[in-house]
Structures are given as C-alpha cells and as structure tokens.
C-alpha cells in the first residue's frame, strides 16, 4: 500500500511530476516527451519548469521540442502511441487544447473503438489549468469538455503524492489519459496565490502508482459531502476547518479522476451525509459538477436532505483585472456560507 510506505521527503507537484516522468523514462525506453519549449538548451523546461534537468539525463532524442503546432503535438503523440510507444505530450496552457481537439476527440479517443479493439493509444497529455491574471485565453479549466469524450480518461491531481502516482499510472495505462494540473499548485511560486497553504506532500522514494478512477477522502465528516479539485479542494478544506466552529463536519473528497468517475465513493459518502456540494474552478454550466450532481440525483435521491449545490467559476470568460478574477472564482467564503445554509 502506498500509504504504508516510508515517506519522509516533501516535494512540490513540479518536483514530483519531474521525478515520476524520469522514473517512467528509465523504466521504459518507449516513454518519450513531446511539446513546445520543453527541452531547448537554456530554455524553460516547459512553461512551468517541470522538465528542467531531464534533457541532461535523457538527451534530446526522447525529448522532442516541436514547432508551435498543437495539432502535431497531439497527433504525433497519438500516432506514436498507436504503434505502442508511450508519449507524454505537453500543452503549455490547457487553453491551447482547443487547437488539437480533432486529434484528441476524433482520433485518439476513437481509434481503439473504430478498430474493433485492435489499436491501443497509450498516450498521456499534460495540460495546466487555472486562472492566474492572464485573461480569457490563458486561464481556463477545460477538464469538463473531455469527460464528455468516450475513450479518454481525465485526471486532475491536487498534491504531489497523487500527481506523481497518477502520472505514472497514466503512462502505463493503455488508454489516452489527459492530466490537468493547476498552475498555482506546482510549487512554491503558487503557494502565496493559492492562499498560503503548504503545497508540498510526502512522496515515497519507492516506485508506486496511484490508480486512475479512485477518489480520496481527504477529510472525513458526517454532515455534508464536498467534492472538489485543485485549488478549490484546498478552499474546501479550509472551509471545512472554519465550519467545525459551527459544529458542521464536512467530508471533503478529492475525486482525482474525473473520467471514469469514482461514483461509488461519492455515493457512499452522500448516503452517509445526505448533502452534496461540488466545487470546481471550471465554469458552472456544463461543468463536471453537473455530471456528478446528475448521477447523485439519479442514484441517491432518497438520501438527499438538501438540494445539491454546485459552486463554480461564474459563467464568464476569465477577466484580467484582479478584482474581477476574484469576483468570479469560487471562494472559500462562498463554500462556507453555502454549507451553513444547507446544514442549518
């Protein structure tokens, strides 16, 4: 069990991802990296520095710096995966995924099915999400588009331990997996912006994976189930602390995987608490929270003691001005107040 492993090191998500990538590249010569500005000498090591140091160990043959051609990044990753290789593709910002939707939605996701099961597409695509004052085209959380694509898996880790474990599981998964990471959670730089929380986690030295499709109960509680990812997860945890003063015990769940969703863990929790709040930084309408709410409204209706609430970014593009960005993001205070009303 990973939890039982001796783990004394604390790593940031960026460090943990880097380590996970390096381990998988060592383990399997078929793993390679592809993306823009990931390995250029003197460059950035990817937009968030995750690849720094990797070219020194693995050379430039397995770390492919592409032209600014997202269709090729996704298409080449998918094509190489169809021949059995294990590409880890990089999208500098997840907003650019809209440039390669055909390759992801029409090709990578459907090829196994169209071939009657003869072709596998074991590719990984990493894509940073989240609003960081960069405006409408550099702040989206597009996870929800992809949960709607049969054939794709979608994960969204929020701490270093799970980020590394699920990345390694994704590399070994025979299906295309999209990994959405939040920019503010990579490391120390994001700490302040994310509310000062400790963004490191214990990460064992030993090889481990964390299964795709398994949610984690981050905090047990009996009054309300709160499902949240990324920065919203930390806000939900903070809200849960605040609410103990009200005598309200929140059960906070990190789903980790958005597709396939671990409905059993959520259903089990809701059947105990009778209340459900979903929090995500993706916009509200058509967000993944809707799917969770719909499943619960189907399977757990008789257990519900209160309406299902979704707290999400308001349905607007990301504005640049700080006051506007703060206005639309799901805030801790909103979570607190919503839960007070639900339970009160």
């Amino acid at each position: 069990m990973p939890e039982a492993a001796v783990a004394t090191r604390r790593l940031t998500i960026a460090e943990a991802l880097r380590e996970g990538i390096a381990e998988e590249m060592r383990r399997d010569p078929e793993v390679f990296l592809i993306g823009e500005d990931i390995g250029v000498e003197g460059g950035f090591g990817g937009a968030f520095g995750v690849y720094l140091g990797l070219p020194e160990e693995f050379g430039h043959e397995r770390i492919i710096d592409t032209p600014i051609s997202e269709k090729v990044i996704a298409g080449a990753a998918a094509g190489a995966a169809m021949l059995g290789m294990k590409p880890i593709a990089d999208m500098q910002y997840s907003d650019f995924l809209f440039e390669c939707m055909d390759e992801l939605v029409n090709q990578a996701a459907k090829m196994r099915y169209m071939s009657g099961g003869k072709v596998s597409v074991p590719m990984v695509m990493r894509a940073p999400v989240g609003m960081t004052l960069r405006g409408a085209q550099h702040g989206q959380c597009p996870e929800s588009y992809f949960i709607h694509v049969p054939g794709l898996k979608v994960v969204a880790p929020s701490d270093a331990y799970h980020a590394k474990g699920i990345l390694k599981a994704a590399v070994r998964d025979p299906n295309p997996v999209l990994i959405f990471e939040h920019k503010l959670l990579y490391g120390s730089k994001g700490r302040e912006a994310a509310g000062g929380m400790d963004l490191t986690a214990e990460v064992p030295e030993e090889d481990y994976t964390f299964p795709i499709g398994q949610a984690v109960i981050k905090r047990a509680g009996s009054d309300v189930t709160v499902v949240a990812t990324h920065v919203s997860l930390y806000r939900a945890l903070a809200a849960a602390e605040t609410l103990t003063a009200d005598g309200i015990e929140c059960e906070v769940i990190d789903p980790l995987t958005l597709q396939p969703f671990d409905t059993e863990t959520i259903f089990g929790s809701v059947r105990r608490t009778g209340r459900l709040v979903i929090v995500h930084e993706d916009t509200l309408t058509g967000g993944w929270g809707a799917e969770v709410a719909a499943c619960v409204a189907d399977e757990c209706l008789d257990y519900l003691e209160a309406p299902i609430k979704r707290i999400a970014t308001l349905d607007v593009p990301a504005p640049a001005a700080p006051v506007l960005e703060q206005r639309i993001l799901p805030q801790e205070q909103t979570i607190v107040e919503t839960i007070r009303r639900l339970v009160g």
Partner: protein
Amino acid sequence: MDAGAAHLQLETVQELYRKVALIRRFEDRVYRLFLEGEIPGTLHQYQGQEAVAAGVCSTLRIDDWITSTHRPHGHALAKGVNTSEAMAELYGKATGCCGGKGGSMHLGDPAVGMLPAIAIVAGGNTIVTGLGLAMKLRKSDQVAACFFGEGATNEGAFHEGLNFSAVEQLPIVWVCENNLYGASTPYGRVSLVPDVAERAKVYGIPSQIVDGMDAVAVREASAAAVEHARNGGGPTLLECKTYRFTGHSRSDARGYRTREEEQEWAKRDPLIVLAARLDEATVARLEAEVKAELDEAVEFARNSPDPDPATALEHVYA
C-alpha cells in the same frame, strides 16, 4: 534489360494489374450491393485512382504503415487487408476487419500495417507523424505512407504535418491523390497554385509530380521515396495526378464537372494503361482470379453474423 529483369518487370506489372483489378471490381461490386440494399451507410469509392494505392503499396513492406482517408477501400486492399474481411466490414458484420465498428470510412487492419482509415479530411496527416516518429525513435527501418486528397492540402493539419516531418526528418512518404476535386469543389477554386508538389518545397521536402493513372510510374516514384525514407533521408511528397471515375459519395450526380472531362480521363483508365503491357490471356487469368476472390468475399460477408449488440460497449477502453 536482361531476361531476368524483364521477367521481374513482367511479374510486377501482373501483380499491379491484379491489385488494380481487385480494387476496381471490388468497388463496382460494392456499389451494386449498396444499391441493392445489402451494404448500409454511405460509400466514397476509389474507381479511377487504383494505380495510386496499388503502386505505392507495392513498394511497402507489411510492417510499413499507411494512413488513409474517407475513401479507403483501395488503400486497404492494396496494403493487404483481407478482401473478405474488408467486404464484411462494409456489411457491418462481426467478421469485418474492424468487427463492424469501423465501416466504410474506417477500413483498416493493424496486422497488415494499416490504421483504421481516418475520415476527417487531413486527419491522418498529423497522426502519421507519430507513426514516423515511433519508427525513428525505435531506429527501425520502417516507413509510413500517408494518403490524402488535394482537398486536404488546405487544412491546417497538412501544413503542420509536413513541416514537422521535415524538421524531424521522419521516414514518411506523403502521397497526395490529386483527383482535381474535393467533393464538388475544383482545386483551382481553392488554391491559386495548381500543383500540390509546389507546396512541399517551402518545408524543405522534395516532391515530384507523378502520373497517377499509371501504376508502374507510381511504383517507380514511390520506390525511390520509400528507399530514401528507409535510409534516413526523410520525407518526400508525391503528387499523383488522378481522377475519380465515380461521384464523391454514392449520391453525387457530378453536376460540377463535364462528361467530356470524364471521358478524357476514362481513356487513361489505370486498367487500360496496365493491360497494354500484358497479353490478353494474362489479363483474363488475373481477372478470373480477382472474380473468384470477390465471389468468396461477398459470400463470406453475407454469411457472417451481425455483431453481438453487447459488443457495442466493448473497446471504448482497454
């Protein structure tokens, strides 16, 4: 040419004729079966363009790969997809090469180096770079060929794929089948430069215009390009000038082109071009072989079971 080479040459022409005829007769048969309601869905047929698929694929090994398009029947048969399984796939049968899940627009079989065809125009043009990249990274001597129409050259994917293949010197042969029309649209209306071969140059990719009605000419050009790629020389683009004898899809009355133009091209029918190099008896023998193969394929498809509806839920994920 010495006797040995001449013999080899003759065998090659026979083999090419056999493939071209197989595709032609397959397509004609399929069209009838479609009209008779035996084959569901829609069809984009390949009559007229057979020399391209036959010529290119005759230069590929079974472990080389191709990507194909919405018009894949000819590519599939040329690359060696089992004729009966291809036919069964069109019928939507469990024994089809994709188990009935692919259908006409997604024919293919990885066992013979053909990905299920990609029906998004130019969709294969980025995917193929991944095939080439895998070959390069594995230091194998495999080659990938990407078939696409002239209409596909106006897609962003065409551009990104070519450029990346050049920069990475991937072992790819880009095979443009310029049949003058994309659906109803003449290429002259959507490109000021009539030759696709020109477009390759700005990526630093060598290119060549080929008589796409002559399987021997296609074979020769392709052999050189494949050899070049296999030896690490990088990509080549072949522009095969050709013509589809049918409508774009099964319901196309071809009002956007003239019967005269069609008749001109019909004179250069790839079967005629090849038959001119063979004696009548050989042609008759090859046609008989093809007919037998197709009779068997139709029988096979007809007698195959429908897929179990439960399998509809399989193969989404591994």
